[in-house]
Every structure is written in structure tokens, then in C-alpha cells.
């Protein structure tokens, strides 16, 4: 997984960027839950063309997920309620990691727990695996002991969780923030103060869909997470709010990115890197295309280094 610390994409254009303690050859990653464990996309795209990939969320033990129906389409988006199905830490290390070691791009492992202690134990175990470049903590899980509210929705709980995980994880630690909050900046601040290296902004937005003909919800669990281009304006707003707060923590922007221009908008709002999510379902080679399109945009606008774009929003409309 070694990759050059800087990358000249031709004609003097530099796409390489450092974000959250990791040097990427370009700023485009693929998002957890939309890219499997990487191998599923082998043959459909060039994995080394990615800046990095984020694996499916891993829990200490395997999980089998929610009953069907688990997904439904909505206006310019989709809802999912997969239930965090995954192979568990041991299954990941045995069956998935060998491929990731040689896939040619940076690998972040997304992880979660259902209790405070599970989070810490899972992060600690995964952090000890060789050839992983970093961890991304999913804090959108329900905290059973606190009445099912997401761990990541309470800044105080989130800060404690990040601090506890930070104390046992030496690799870069990113935190994927939930947008289901009235104060995204408070959550990002808790992560920064807890010692996180970056925040990924945003996870899916809780929503629901109803079939008027059957009078039933379209998901077995009634509620699910909304993703796709429908959420991009919300994601951009949250990235910008965190950037504007000047917390000093790098931001990885996520939410409805389909094109290079979408990614550029996130850079301007303050993201150093982006993750492509739902679009991987529509066009499995889209992340590779988005890297190309970012290069084309830079050349067209005489930008020689993608880092020039980060936070370069001109605030007057």
C-alpha cells in the first residue's frame, strides 16, 4: 500500500494532499458501506487511482443486519437500513485484510460498537492490524444504555468516546459525524478536543418513506439513512460551518458527490478530502472519473495545487 507522498498528475498539477494524518495521492476516497471491502470493485475500476477507500463498518463480532426491505429509492436519493451487517474484527482480519494489503490505495477501516467499551475494544484491536492507514469511527450507532440515542449526537458523550479511543489507537483516527444534530460544530469541536485527526462530514440523514397504496413504510425498520445527491446541500452547509469555526481539524466531505465539480464544491467549503458514497452504486467506476474531473477543473481554472481550493470559498454570493 505504499504510495508516493506527492503526486504530479501531469502538466504540473498537484492533487496530493495530507488529511487527518494520512498522505493521499489525491483527495478522493470511497465511503464506508458503499464500497464493500474493496475487492468487489476489482476489475470494475482501478483501485490505485483512488486516494483511499474506507471499508464497511466493522464491529467486534459479526452482525447479520436488519430484515428486508432494507433500501428504497427516494427523490434523487435512497434510504438504507442495512443494520451495520459486517464480518466482525476477526473475519475482517482473516478474510478481507489480505486483499486490502495489496490493493494499491490507502485503507481506512470504519468501525463501531454498541457500547462504550465495545467501541474502545474494537478500535484497539483494529488499530493493531498491520497495513491499515487509519481508522474511521462511526458514531451513529444507538447507545442502548442512554435510551438508544446515537453516541455521536451528544457532544459530551462523543468527546469522552473519542478521548477513550484515542488513548488506545496510535494510527490516524477519524470520526464520521452524524448530521442528526442541531449543532454540528459542537460535535466537531468535541472530536478535535478528544484528539481525533479528522472528521468525516456527513453520515446519512435519518428519514422515512411511505407507500401510500399499501399504507406501509417502505423499510422494515421504518426509519433509515438518506444518502445521494438529495443531501448534498446539507452536507456542504455542515462542512462549511465546521471549517468556518476554525477548529483546526481537517474535514473529509461526504454527501451526494457525483462529479468532480461536486467534489470541488466541498473543497471550497473547507474539506481537504472527499468520499464518494451512493454514486458507487450507480457507476462503479465513478470515483476514478471524479479524480479525473477534479484535474480537469483545476487545469481549466489554472489551479496548480488542489490544496489551493480548500476553504477558498468567496463568501459573497
Amino acid at each position, binding site marked *: 500500500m505504499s504510495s508516493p507522498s506527492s503526486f504530479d498528475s501531469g502538466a504540473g498539477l498537484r492533487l496530493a494532499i495530507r488529511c487527518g494524518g494520512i498522505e493521499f495521492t489525491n483527495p478522493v476516497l470511497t465511503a464506508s458501506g458503499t464500497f464493500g471491502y474493496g475487492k468487489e470493485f476489482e476489475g470494475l475500476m482501478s483501485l490505485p487511482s483512488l486516494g483511499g477507500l474506507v471499508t464497511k463498518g466493522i464491529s467486534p463480532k459479526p452482525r447479520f443486519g436488519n430484515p428486508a426491505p432494507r433500501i428504497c429509492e427516494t427523490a434523487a436519493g435512497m434510504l438504507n437500513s442495512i443494520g451495520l451487517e459486517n464480518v466482525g474484527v476477526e473475519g475482517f482480519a482473516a478474510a478481507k485484510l489480505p486483499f486490502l494489503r495489496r490493493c494499491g490505495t490507502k485503507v481506512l477501516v470504519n468501525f463501531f460498537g454498541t457500547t462504550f467499551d465495545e467501541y474502545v475494544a474494537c478500535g484497539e484491536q483494529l488499530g493493531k492490524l498491520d497495513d491499515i492507514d487509519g481508522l474511521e469511527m462511526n458514531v451513529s450507532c444507538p447507545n442502548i444504555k442512554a435510551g438508544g440515542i446515537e453516541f455521536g449526537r451528544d457532544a459530551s458523550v462523543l468527546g469522552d468516546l473519542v478521548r477513550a479511543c484515542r488513548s488506545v489507537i496510535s494510527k490516524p483516527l477519524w470520526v464520521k459525524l452524524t448530521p442528526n444534530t442541531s449543532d454540528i460544530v459542537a460535535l466537531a469541536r468535541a472530536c478535535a478536543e478528544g484528539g481525533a485527526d479528522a472528521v468525516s462530514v456527513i453520515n446519512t440523514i435519518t428519514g422515512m418513506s411511505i407507500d401510500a397504496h399499501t399504507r406501509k413504510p417502505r423499510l422494515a425498520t421504518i426509519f433509515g439513512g438518506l444518502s445521494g*445527491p438529495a443531501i448534498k446541500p446539507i452536507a456542504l452547509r455542515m462542512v462549511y460551518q465546521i471549517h468556518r469555526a476554525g477548529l483546526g481539524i481537517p474535514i473529509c466531505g461526504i454527501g451526494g458527490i457525483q462529479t468532480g465539480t461536486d467534489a470541488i464544491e466541498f473543497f471550497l467549503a473547507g474539506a481537504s478530502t472527499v468520499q464518494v458514497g451512493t454514486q458507487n452504486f450507480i457507476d462503479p467506476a465513478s470515483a476514478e472519473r471524479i479524480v479525473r474531473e477534479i484535474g480537469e477543473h483545476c487545469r481549466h481554472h489554472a489551479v496548480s495545487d488542489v490544496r489551493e481550493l480548500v476553504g477558498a470559498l468567496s463568501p459573497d454570493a
Partner: protein
Amino acid sequence: MRYFDARIIENRALGNGYFVLRLGGCDSLSGSRPGQFIMLRGDWGRDPLLPRPMSLLSVASEGRADVLAKGVGRGTQLLENAQPGARVSVLGPLGNGFPGPEPETFDLLAAGGVGLPPLFMQAESATKVGLVDRCEMIYGGRTSRDLVLLGEMRALGLGIHLATEDGSVGRRGRVTASLEARIEQHRVSERHLKLRIMACGPKEMLWAVARIAEASGIECYLSLEAHMACGIGVCLGCAVPARSWPFRYTCSDGPVFLATDLVIPAASGVQGGAT
């Protein structure tokens, strides 16, 4: 499996919302097996967002592939109205497919409504290897307007048994009643051949077919439909309850499953029948 652009060569309306799209530029689909599918999406912007899983109806030389669909939702209605020359994106071939025809077996192909394509392709494949007399189609729909491509099937030399709920053509009733009758008939007349059932159609029909197969001790393959976003085992949206594992995935473990591998719901009073 490849992801590529194709063009609509022809869009043939069959009435009642049914249509056959003939796609060009699908060389990557040559060698597809009956039961395999593609993820198909028109060049229509951001909404509807996701590609549609479509069973292959037929794959011909020169990169041509046919799919049969019915315009029911926004995506299929857009495809129903798509013009020749329009660009579509295709990911495929996907999934596993039905087992091939064999000289020592007789396959009862049970199709309900828009579940026809994989079974049509299975019959076509049997014709190509000279085994069309080792299968027959039992094809049901609500009315005669839901039964399409009958001429094409007869041209394959295929035996066809039709069923409609309103009795407008063929036997009145559901396809499962016709299937039971055909099982009895074959037990008398084709005792030297091993019977198999291959079915595709609405879920309630498939569960009813599975219960008939289990009661009769007949090997049964079901081709399932499911909501899915990716088609390649990544989104995990198309989970189906299985016996040996909590879930299997329609796209990557199926879409064709041995009925005995799945958790088949018990018959309920209202839903025991099928299309």
C-alpha cells in the same frame, strides 16, 4: 462482469405496459446464462437515482441483448418511453443463473407475469442444445394482456400451458394450480425423467411454488426479484432470509436459489395462491 455504455436499438411495445428493449453494444453479455441479470440505467440525470435490475430475456450475436419489462414505476416508465439511439449504462452479467437443461431431466418452467424473461431464456437455451422437449412453460397472468411473447415461445418449439386469473386465455386460475396439474401429468407420462421446477414471478407465487415442490419432493429453483442498489453484493439491500445463514443476497448469491436453501413463509389464508 463489466460496466459499459450501450444503445437502445429497438423498443418494442407489447401492450399493457410491457415492452422489449433491444440493446446494442453488449458484447460483454455474450455467454450470459439464463437467470442472470443486468443493472440498467438510462441517461436521465439524478432522478430516479438508481439503476434497475433486469433479467436478460435473450442474448444474441453482434452484441445484442434483449430485456423485457413492464412500465410500473418511474424508472421502468422512462425505459418504456425510451427512443432507439438512446444511451443506457449496463453492469453485467450479474448473478448465478439456472442450471442448464439435461437429457435426463424434465424442467417445468413456471413464469408469473413479468417473471417470464429468465425462463424464456432457459427455453431458448434448451432449444439451442436440442433439448426443448425436456422442458415446458407454465405461464400465468391476470388476463390475456399479461401474457406476452407467445409467438416467440411457440417458435422455439416449446410446449406452453397458459393460465389467467380471469380465464380470458388458457386455464382459469393461478399458475400454481396449473403447475400442480402438470406435475401430476408428468408423474404419469414421463416417469423415466427427473422433474425439476424453475420459477420466476411475484414473491407470493414463488413461495407457493416452493411449497408445492417441497410437498412433491421436486428439486425447485426460484429466481427472486429484490430492491437493490448495486447488483454486486455491496449495498446489502437485497437480503433474503436463508436456512443456513441469516441472510443470502439476491444479487451475489442468486438471483436463482434452490428453494430448500431459503426460508419459505408459511401459506396464509389470503396469500396462499399466486399469480
